[in-house]
């Protein structure tokens, strides 16, 4: 792994750890619109394992959000890398 990749990943995880407590809990743009208009909608049918970036079994809110966020971060990283690598390897095999 190249040095800049390692450095950027570490920096992002550190930033996430530091910024989670500072992240705004105000409603965001669309939430604000929904609140302003007083819209009611039914909830979805899918039950995500880590809803709202929290893990049920972890009672500490910070640890729960950070662990969920870190898990998501690593999953996104690996999935993108695998998709990219698979596409690149296929291309290399074709010799194009």
């Amino acid at each position, binding site marked *: 792994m190249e040095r800049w990749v390692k450095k950027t990943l570490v920096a992002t995880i550190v930033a996430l750890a530091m910024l989670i407590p500072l992240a*705004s809990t105000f409603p*965001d743009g669309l939430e604000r*619109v929904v609140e302003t208009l007083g819209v009611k909608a039914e909830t979805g049918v*899918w039950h*995500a394992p880590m809803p709202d970036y929290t893990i049920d079994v972890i009672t500490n*809110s910070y640890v729960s959000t950070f662990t969920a966020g870190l898990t998501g971060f690593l999953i996104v990283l690996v999935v993108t890398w695998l998709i990219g690598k698979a596409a690149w390897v296929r*291309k290399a095999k074709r010799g194009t």
Partner: protein
Amino acid sequence: MKKYYSRRLYNIHISDGFLDPPVYITMYAVSGLSWVLAFRKARQMLGEKHVPLMSVLTAGVFAAQMLNFPVVIGTSGHIVGGTLIAIFLGPYATIISQTIILVIQAFLFSDGGITALGANVFNMGVVSALSYYVYTAIRMGVHGKEGLITATSIASWASTVLGAVACGFELGVSSTFQPYGGVAMTVPIMALWHALIGLGEAFITSSIVTYTVKVRPDLLELEKLAPHVR
């Protein structure tokens, strides 16, 4: 217990239950076409050097989307990040990266609905992929560092606002929002809030781009996954 996140139902990520089936099916079709195009083209252009940069950027944008920053009057926003990816890797990469992020957000974190996935990919992926052309057009006219900062700021601001307009339109034509004024209400409100949130997007995106130019300019000079490059 203080909750750091409370974004279950409403977000710039549209949740399930807000869009009517004809709307979300249409959006799935539009985004589906862009997936096919982006994946096919990107596969032909992708080089070994693209893979680590794309992985780091996609994971970084996922992390950044978790962090809502305050805007004004009790409202917050988070960056979309699509323009950032487009500037480094081109519009096809934006569509692929945002799709990966949105699928994982929807299935693992309930951030954005499953039925609304097509719409969310359009608003945050396809629209911000198109902002790449705003960026390149401005850079052709304004050269040097000023051009880079101006182009990055305007393109990322525009991607946030236009994505929000698209989002407002999709919501407004759906029956949930009909009693509240429909499109005439949702589009202006979404555009207004995101005109402010977009300033944050512009600041963060141009900061990252100018910092990269300073420390690793080569990362910005990789071949872009965009039409008419080769």
